[in-house]
């Protein structure tokens, strides 16, 4: 803790760390080479398939590409993250 930070007006993060965070986010998308259009198409397809089995909340749906630690600890790997709230199950004909 820096004694002098008490006197600073407010502790906005220094621009260096802002730059780093922004870059990390941009590079996740650059590296997977996935445009927002493609992501939108993927999203529509996922909704279509899942809707065959369950009723989902389109409004609260969240699909994005982020990154996670890789298993072999060689840095990070991109992941497709999807948070899809289920409203109810549909009756599926099983034959």
């Amino acid at each position: 803790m820096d004694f002098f930070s008490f006197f600073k007006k407010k502790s906005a993060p220094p621009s260096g760390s802002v730059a780093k965070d922004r870059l990390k986010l941009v590079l996740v998308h650059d590296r997977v080479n996935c445009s927002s259009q493609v992501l939108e198409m993927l999203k529509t397809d996922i909704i279509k398939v899942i809707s065959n089995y369950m009723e989902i909340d389109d409004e609260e749906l969240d699909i994005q590409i982020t990154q996670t630690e890789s298993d072999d600890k060689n840095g990070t790997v991109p992941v497709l993250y999807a948070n899809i709230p289920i409203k109810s199950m549909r009756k599926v004909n099983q034959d």
Partner: protein
Amino acid sequence: MSEVIVITSGKGGVGKTTTSANLGCGLAIQGKKVALVDADIGLRNLDVVMGLENRIVYDLVDVVEGNCRLKQALIKDKRYEGLFLLPAAQTRDKDAVSPEQMQKLCENLKEEGFDYILIDCPAGIEQGFKNAIAGADRAVVVTTPEVSAVRDADRIIGLLEANGLNNPTLIVNRLRIDLVKRGEMMNIEDVTEILAVDILGVVPDDETIVIATNKGEPAVSNEESRAGQAYRNIVRRIMGEDVPLMTFEEEPETFMDKLKKLFRR
């Protein structure tokens, strides 16, 4: 043993040409036989940075097209024994050369007995980039600690690896120590963490570079220059020595810095 090293960056203006000139001179000072190849066809600059602009007769395209022999186009440096420049053509464009021709050129330079062949790559990811990396054995990526330069460096690293140039190393150029200390610039750890490559060197932002470039005398030979020292360290690392990264602690401390330290924790 002969090695072809391409110096690249993606983004323009981060210091590829300055880096090429300084590393070339630095290696020559160490007694190596070095060829500097300016692959930026149409935007030739390595010659002025080296102070050799008045000596150009033939250029890279002349060699490739067979208008002259390789030896005729190589300009001998005026200061360092064993240092030669192959200038880019100024009145042609990047399509004047193909990757296969560049590969052949690199082979021929190796046969001439050069220890190091440094290729100054043009900015961008198009034909000029593909030409410049075609004959390279390894790649050095130059960046500055800014979002645009680091983003482009990341793209370039991906393209280098897709072209079989694995494990490129990184030079972070124009680091502003004062800004880093205030947290207003990304530090070396930030940049290497984001790009996930090994660091070859850190060059501080230094006015001696501007002065040296004005005169056409690379700063690597200037004992007083901090950037020159950084380049000398990089040269030794290229030659396989284990040289620790420059520390920037000897920056003069202000009274306020000292006072702040007293109160910390």
